[in-house]
């Protein structure tokens, strides 16, 4: 279970974009979080993925309370998450070939020797050919790069996936393909999902349950957008 309780977070403690928000996702279930852009849902997704430390509130991952974000959380906790963002170009090191991009989390956790096998298996899954794996981000389309970013998110076999507007920039077929990859992985691994987006039709189709940002807030947050 992923439990976010009374989270307040942002980039300026005087003007938090997330204020007093609570959200719980049962083990293995998929929750869609629907809200307009600028409402703070992406910040909440970063908190849920342990990438951003909240100003206050608690995050409990599978019964295990998180003490801090990034390197202050335990490795076990951090590697429980795979994250995919909206804009693959902002999330990918432009110097890395796609194969290295996908293997990056393995290297960062000292499991370099598993890279070749894991990348080959995932590339097939997300539909990247050997030739594409050898290219750098500027040599592939947005859709191809997002496929690589999804493979990277899966390479540590996370128990939780956080997808923040994963398909917002993609054509309908690529979007459906990436959602199918996520769902196949979840079916086989039992991983849970938080999918953040602004498209209700998509989230309703994808997730077990769709919650609206406004329903999560205990107090009004001054998003100002």
């Amino acid at each position, binding site marked *: 279970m992923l439990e976010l309780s009374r989270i307040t977070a942002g980039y300026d403690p005087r003007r938090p974009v997330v204020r007093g928000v609570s959200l719980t996702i049962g083990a293995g279930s998929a929750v869609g979080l629907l809200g307009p852009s600028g409402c703070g849902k992406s910040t909440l997704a970063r908190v849920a993925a342990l990438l951003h430390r909240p100003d206050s509130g608690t995050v409990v991952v599978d019964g295990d309370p998180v003490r801090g974000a990034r390197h202050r959380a335990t490795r076990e906790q951090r590697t429980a998450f795979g994250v995919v963002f909206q804009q693959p170009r902002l999330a990918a090191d432009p110097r890395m070939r796609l194969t290295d991009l996908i293997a990056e989390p393995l290297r960062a956790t000292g499991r370099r020797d598993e890279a070749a096998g894991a990348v080959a298996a995932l590339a097939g899954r997300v539909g990247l050919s050997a030739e594409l794996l050898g290219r750098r981000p500027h040599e592939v389309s947005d859709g191809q790069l997002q496929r690589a970013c999804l493979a990277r998110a899966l390479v540590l076999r996370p128990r939780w996936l956080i997808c923040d507007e994963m398909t917002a*920039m993609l054509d309908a077929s690529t979007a459906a393909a990436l959602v199918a990859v996520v769902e196949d992985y979840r079916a086989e691994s039992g991983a849970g999902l938080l999918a953040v987006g602004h*498209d209700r039709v998509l989230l309703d189709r*994808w997730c077990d349950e769709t919650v609206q940002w406004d329903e999560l807030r205990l107090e009004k947050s001054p998003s100002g957008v």
Partner: protein
Amino acid sequence: MSLVPAANPVPTANPVPAVDPVLSVRNLSVRFRMRGGREVAAVTDASFELGPGECLALIGESGCGKSVLASALLGLLPRNAAATGRALMGDLDLLAADERTLARTVRGRRIGLVPQSPSAHLTPVRTVRSQLEETVRELTGVPRAGLRAAAEAAAERAAFPVSHLDRHSHQLSGGLAQRAATALALVGDAPLLLADEPTTGLDRDLVDRTVDELRRHADAGRALLMITHDLAAARRVADRVAVMYAGRIVEITGAPAFFGEPGPRHPYARALLDALPERAFTPIPGMPPELGDLPAGCAFAARCARASDLCGTLPATTDGVSCHHPVARPHPEESSRA
């Protein structure tokens, strides 16, 4: 206004205008020369017409050539690209025009560009008012004393609130930045509006409002060419739809028939609609071919459930559809022709 007007029996919402087209594109191709002598076929043999008051949505996935086509019309192709064919606005062939002509008489005057990311298009150090006034001064003969009123009128045409004119672009919401960019595009009173992915990154209700405003400008008599990967936005705004795949327009047809019944006839277009979450939500297997390494025949063959040996040759375009085995129309006399 369809590609083969007389032979198109599908009823469309837009009556065929009896006036000259605003834009007539004939056999437009764009080739990029890459290092090592490699050639990339970004656009091949695109033909369509666009009349006043009409909106054509050019849809397809990223990298299919639709944005390159727009750049070719504006004379904004990079140096290593060459365009062939014709793109006529009246007597002027956009593809043959020199940069001076394009800069002085086309961009802003004959074609208003509604850009993909409005905040990047607006100058961050200046207010919306000062940019609008400068554009008014450049594109119209309004004397200095009239600039302020003219800029405010331009803002109002795009539903941009005059109360926000003294703001900088970073102080605007996504929706207002888009309206500011649209206001700039409208200043020159261009007969053709070209909107390149105008809804990317916008929330659904903002998408709806943005395309409704574009539609309003088409209804006021402009021609609107909207390039988008957003099928819901295309459905909302377009009279006709052109589907691009691997650099070619594979189907061009009326929007009601395309999104409703009987649906698209080209297998790629059908599969693309089926991938929508409100439909089957099934992806098309595989990925499009590289534009630098296209097959000799139909570029969709490797992914197409209807492919046959014949598809190893290039299909001709019949009734706006480029396919050897298009999905039959419900009328027997038409399906026998395919």
